């Protein structure tokens, strides 16, 4: 009863990668979600790839759990991409009328990471807090900075408010 399935969360650059290899029960899902959220904070991660290549069954519980996790990840200002949905899974998900509306999907890990990078670049451009005219002109300079965090914590950057006035 006490045993739960620990899902390893790996860090790659600004991203976290978690691969679900076993069927998840309620407790494991909660543990995984908490683990993932803590790691996002610790690592300052901007995006998460959840790999479900090895998952053979997604029922409505699993679909809802993945969706809930995606919502929580979004609330921390990070993006979540689900990768590795097998063709059979896609078919049964459609038949069951199940969707995971809050997560983006990609074919595999490589495409998932590319997708995250693209999403973060795009969201930086749309940031409601202008980072200043010069850096807007050269988005390359922004690369080292935390992306979505800018929206919430504009530390030492008063330019955001000035730009509006």
């Amino acid at each position, binding site marked *: 009863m006490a045993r739960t399935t620990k899902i390893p969360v790996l860090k790659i650059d600004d991203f976290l990668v978690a691969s679900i290899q076993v069927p998840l029960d309620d407790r494991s899902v909660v543990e995984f979600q908490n683990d993932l959220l803590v790691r996002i904070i610790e690592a300052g991660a901007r995006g998460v790839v959840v790999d479900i290549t090895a998952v053979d069954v997604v029922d*409505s519980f699993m679909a809802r759990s993945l969706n809930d996790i995606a919502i929580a990840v979004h609330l921390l200002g990070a993006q979540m991409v689900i990768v590795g949905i097998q063709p059979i899974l896609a078919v049964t998900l459609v038949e069951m*009328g199940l969707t995971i509306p809050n997560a983006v999907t990609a074919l595999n890990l490589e495409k998932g990471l590319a997708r995250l990078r693209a999403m973060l670049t795009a969201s930086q451009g749309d940031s409601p807090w202008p980072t200043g005219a010069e850096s807007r002109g050269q988005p390359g300079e922004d690369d080292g900075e935390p992306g979505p965090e800018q929206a919430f914590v504009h530390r030492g950057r008063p330019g955001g408010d000035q730009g509006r006035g």
Partner: protein
Amino acid sequence: MDTGERNIVINAETDIILARIAGGELAEQLGFDTIEKHCIITSISELAANIFFIAGSGTITLAVVSRNDGQTGLQVIASDEGPGIQDLEQALQDGYSTSGGLGGGLPGVNRLMSEMAISSVVGQGTVVRAVKWLDDDRFTLRLYRPERDGERT
């Protein structure tokens, strides 16, 4: 071939997984292909989850059954003594759920399996019987028969 009934008592979430595994094994023994097996496993998962999350406990019974014409099928019976289903018609509508987004289950099972029947008495419990027949070809995807791709179009 093992044709005896298999009862899986659902008392904990891990029992859902046990039911799923047992169903997968039986489906393989009977010769269901990958996607049909997957439909069966997903349905069992859904029914077992309904038992656990709505009724608390119950039983999944797996059995090999035969149709009048001799066709073989895998039967799943999910029974519980839970609250029962108030409005069966509504429960079979897409997107309907009483357990906070968990549902959508029954219409899904209905589509994944060849046939499904429900009997439910409010306050006494629910029995769902679903069968997947071996000759049910609805989910024979071209994906799994690549050699046929050229012939179609």
